[in-house]
C-alpha cells in the first residue's frame, strides 16, 4: 500500500509580471501512516502552496509530490478521485443553504439524488449543523459559513482530505465539532492533511506534525518527538515584573514588561524557585508545548506575551 503523502525536493516559484517569488524552496518529507498530519508554519511559509500542488492545482517547478503513490502531475486525473479540499479563506454561495451546498456538491460529483440526499443529511448531522442547514448562507455567521465549506469537503468519499486552515474564525465549540468530525474520519481509516495556525488544534488532533519556514520543510515528528528535540524540557512562566538577567543562567529567557518565560530543564526548576524572590503563586511550571517547539524552530523573532 503506497504511503499517504510524499514530497521530495519540491520547489514552487510564482512568476508575475517579471517578478518571481519562491513560495516553496525545498519540501522533503513523507507522511507514512494514515491519520492526521498537521503542517505548521508562519504566514507565507508555503503551506497553502503545498496544498495547491498536492491537490493538482499548481504544477511544481522541481521535485515531486505523490499522494497514495499517485504523482500530482502525471497521475492527476486518478488523483482527483482520491482527494477532497477545503481551500484557505473559501466561502459558501450566499444564496444557497448549507444543505444545498452539500447536496449539490454530491450531485456535481456524479451521485444520484438519493445518494446526495443521504450523504448531505449524514454530514450535516456529523457536524451538528441541523439548526441552520436550511438557512441561506448570507444570513449565517462566519463560523457557520466556514462549517459549510468543511461539510462540503467531508461529504466526498476521499482517501485524503486537505483542509487548509479549516477552523479559522470558528469559536471553540464549533472548532470542537470540526475536531470530532476529523477524529471520526481518522478512526474510519482516512487521512487528513491539515494546515492551521492554532497550535493547540495541531497538538490535539495530529498523529504527526510538520513544521515549515520560509519555503523550507524544517522538521517532522509526533508531538513528543518534537518536544524531545528541544534543548529544554520545562517551561517556567512568571507573571509580573522580574529581572530577566536573574534567570539567564538556567536557560533561554523571554522577558516582557508583564511576564517572563524561562525555557529550562527539570533539574533547574528547584533552583529557580529557591533563588527567585518571586511569590510562588505567580509562577507556572509545565513541560514545553508545541508552541515552544514552534517558536524555537521558526519564530526566533516572535515576541512571547504571557497575557
Amino acid at each position, binding site marked *: 500500500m503506497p504511503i499517504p503523502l510524499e514530497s521530495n525536493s519540491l520547489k514552487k*516559484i*510564482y*512568476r508575475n509580471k517579471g517578478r518571481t517569488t519562491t513560495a516553496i524552496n525545498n519540501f522533503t518529507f513523507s507522511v507514512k501512516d494514515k491519520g492526521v498530519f498537521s503542517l505548521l508554519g508562519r504566514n507565507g511559509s508555503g503551506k497553502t502552496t503545498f496544498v*495547491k500542488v498536492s*491537490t*493538482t*492545482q*499548481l*504544477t511544481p*517547478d522541481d521535485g515531486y509530490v505523490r499522494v497514495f503513490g499517485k504523482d500530482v502531475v502525471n497521475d492527476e*486525473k486518478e488523483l*482527483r*478521485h482520491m*482527494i*477532497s*479540499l*477545503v*481551500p*484557505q*479563506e*473559501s*466561502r*459558501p*454561495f450566499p*444564496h*444557497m443553504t448549507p444543505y*444545498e451546498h452539500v447536496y*449539490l*456538491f454530491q*450531485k*456535481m*460529483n*456524479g*451521485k*444520484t439524488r438519493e445518494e446526495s440526499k443521504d450523504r448531505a443529511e449524514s454530514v450535516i448531522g456529523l457536524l451538528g449543523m441541523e439548526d441552520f442547514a436550511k438557512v*441561506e448562507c448570507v444570513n449565517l455567521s462566519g463560523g457557520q459559513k466556514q462549517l459549510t465549506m468543511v461539510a*462540503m*469537503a467531508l461529504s*466526498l468519499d476521499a482517501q485524503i482530505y*486537505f483542509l487548509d486552515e479549516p477552523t479559522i474564525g470558528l469559536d471553540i465549540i464549533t472548532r470542537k465539532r470540526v475536531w470530532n468530525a476529523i477524529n471520526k474520519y481518522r478512526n474510519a481509516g482516512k487521512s487528513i492533511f491539515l494546515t492551521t495556525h492554532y497550535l493547540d488544534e495541531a497538538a490535539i488532533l495530529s498523529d504527526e506534525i510538520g513544521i515549515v519556514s520560509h519555503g523550507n520543510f524544517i522538521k517532522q515528528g509526533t508531538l513528543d518527538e518534537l518536544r524531545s528535540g528541544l534543548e529544554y524540557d520545562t517551561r517556567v512562566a512568571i507573571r509580573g515584573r522580574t529581572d530577566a538577567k536573574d534567570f539567564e543562567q538556567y536557560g533561554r529567557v523571554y522577558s516582557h514588561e508583564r511576564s517572563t518565560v524561562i525555557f529550562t530543564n527539570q533539574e533547574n526548576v528547584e533552583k529557580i524557585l529557591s533563588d527567585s524572590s518571586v511569590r510562588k503563586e505567580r509562577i507556572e511550571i509545565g513541560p514545553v508545548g508545541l508552541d515552544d517547539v514552534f517558536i524555537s524552530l521558526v519564530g526566533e523573532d516572535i515576541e512571547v506575551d504571557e497575557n
Partner: protein
Amino acid sequence: MIRELYRTITSLTELNGFIPLWRRPIALVAVISTPFSFLFFIYLFGGPSKILIGAIGGILFTIVNASTMLQTDLLFYKLDLKFQQVVASTPINPLIYVFGLATGNIVFTLPGLAIFMGIIVYESHIGVLQILSVIGTLIMTWVIFSMFSFLVSTRVREMRDIWPISVMFSIIFGVVPPIYYSISVLPAPVEYFAYIVPTTWAAILLKGIVIHDFAGVALPALVFLVEMFCVLGFTSQFSDWRHNRS
C-alpha cells in the same frame, strides 16, 4: 458516465440558475431590460415595421449579454468563494463546469428569449425549420461567448478588473456589431473589424434565416461554425483553469 455528466451539469445549472432565480427573481429584470429598452426605442423611432429587426437584435443581444455576464460569476466563484479550487481538485472537467454554469445563466434569459421569439415568429411567419435554425444560431452564440467568458475569468487575477472588461466586451460584442442595423452602413475599416466579431456572423445568420434568403445562409453558417470551433480550441489552449500552472 453520461448520467454522471448529466448530474454534474444539472447541479451546476441549479446552483447558478434556478436557485438564485427562485430566491432573487429581480435579477430577471436586469438581464432582459436592455434589449427590451432597445426594442422600445426602435419601435418609437422606426415604427411598427422595425419591430422584427428589433426583436432579432433583442434575442441576439440577450444571449450575448447573458453569456458575457457569465465572466463576472465565474470570477466571483474563483476569487471570492474559491469554489473553482474546490472543483479543480475533483474529476469535474472545466468545460463541463462552464457548460453547467452557463446553462444556469441562460435560465434567467428564458422569459425574454421566449417573448422575442414570439415576436419574431408572429412578425415573420417563419416555419419550424427556420425556428430551429434560429435556436441553433443562438446556441452557437451562447457557446462562443460563454467560452470567451471562461477564458477571461481564468486569466483575470482581481475582481475589480472584471468590471471594465465586462463593459468593454458588452460594447464590442453586443453594441458595435450590426445587430440592430445593416453591416453596410459601417465605414470601411469598422466594417472589416466587424467581420472578425462573431456577433456579426450571428446577426447575418439570423437576419438571413428570418428576413432575407434562408437558402443563402450556408456561407455565414459555415463561417460562424468555424469561428465557434476556433474559440473552443483557443479557450482550451489558453485558459488557465488551474491557477498559475507554469
